[in-house]
């Protein structure tokens, strides 16, 4: 999986959990929280969907790594690739 594909996975999840948010031009390097009306509970939902849909576990200590699309891609892409390689 490429980093761009990984970003799309995160955007798809946000579209699922926040159907009223416009995700069409999110800036990858700006915190999601500053661009969308997301609170800590919504981030928990993103973590939950990563687990449910993709089998990716994000421990609580790493939540801050999901802050922006870039940091999500940085953190999650290796996890996806690791999982797919198995």
């Amino acid at each position: 999986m490429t980093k761009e594909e990984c970003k799309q996975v995160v955007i798809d999840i946000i579209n699922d959990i926040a159907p009223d948010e416009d995700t069409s031009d999110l800036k990858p390097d700006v915190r999601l929280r500053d661009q969308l009306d997301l609170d800590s509970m919504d981030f928990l939902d993103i973590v939950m969907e990563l687990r449910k849909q993709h089998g990716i576990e994000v421990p609580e200590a790493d939540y801050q790594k999901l802050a922006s699309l870039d940091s999500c891609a940085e953190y999650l892409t290796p996890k996806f690739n690791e999982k797919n390689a198995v």
Partner: protein
Amino acid sequence: MARRPREDHYDFLIIGAGMAGMAAAIRLGHFGKKVLLLERHAIIGGLNSFYKQDGRKYDVGLHAVTNYVPAGTKRAPLTKLLRQLRISHADLDLSPQKVSRVAFPGHDLRFSNDFILLESEVSRVFPKEIDRFRNLTEKVKSFDELDLQGPKLSARKILSEELQDPLLIDMLLCPLMYYGSAKEGDMDFYQFVIMFKALFLEGFARPFEGVRHITQLLLRRLRELSVERIMNCGVQSLRAGEGEIKEVLLDNGRVIRADCILSTIGSVETAALVENEAPFVRQAEEKTPRLSFVETISVFDKQPVDWGWDETIVFFSDQEKFAYEQPDDYVDPRSGVICVPNNYQYPDEKTLAEGFLRITCLANYDRWVGLPEETYRAEKARWFEEMVRSARRFLPPVEDAEIEKHQVGTDMFTPRTITKYTGHLGGAVYGAPEKIRDGRTPYRNLVLAGTDQGFLGITGSMLSGISMANLHGLQSG
């Protein structure tokens, strides 16, 4: 692992498929929990439901969805709620109100979903109070009403410090109490804040199809998430031991176990189900009576606006000192709420096929509940007339004959009806006078959600279910 056909263990048991129970079930469904949702009545929705009579569908409860904000409004309860349930704003099909009013002797305060109207009305009617009113508004805006551990403060005490004119205080309290106070005379300040935001800073809206549109939407989400649901089946008893609920006996004879039981049926009502230990709360210990209501519904083959009845909701009191308390008589017709569901801004100038006038007044449960059938009917008829007469004093005048000519149906529900269909003791609409804000009970796997947690209105009750589901379903892993 093959699932046994009568698997008796659930991650979550939710008692009551009202707004709070359904919202909680949807959240837990998202988390992939194994949930059982029980509803003793044949219809979902609890206090916000509907019924059919003479081929007509009547809404129960809902005059308005409070907390209305337009799509995309940041940090508002409605936005949060939709997000959590993964429902889009458009799906709710909400149309905003036209204009509403608080009507007291010689004084009227109009308000709408634009707070500026209320502010300008306060400055028109109470010019000396406007600066103080603005300060109060700021105080409300910055108050954290969701802090479950906050101290209990009297709204009347704070209002009397913030404002000087007692009439303005009562005119502000009247709608807020009618739409959410379980207590006589006063309300807790945090509830005042919740209601002030819900009614004045946010606003009223309604789906064209009424409350059933919302309950059907929730039901669809429950189905999508494959939440197991049993209708016409409540809980017979809860078997306690070692500080937890060990087993649950259902009305249908089945015995189940659950890691967590979320009860939305009320604190005293839940406590009464524990069969082998003393109830953790009792109605007899409540310091003030539970508040109940009567509502009349008149149906016309004419749009109310044609009589000049063009407002959405009118909160009235013919006394300057507004009395929000259980009446000694069957009904207290001196004050009440008039709702005209036709008067919302429906899209494309759509209008409801018939005209509706709903009037709500405070009532005395004990008087209504023990009546023999014939007397019950007679009292209903007597109070119907009385309430309509009282309410019409606050609407543009129309000849009696004109009303009679166009009236094609009437109905009325009483405290007795409420207890019969919801199981809430004392015909209570807003639950027990004392709230258990964190929902805790002496049993570690039994928590309360819904009205007795103190979150009111349709938005509040759903948020209550959501917050309890999140607390016990997600954060604990």
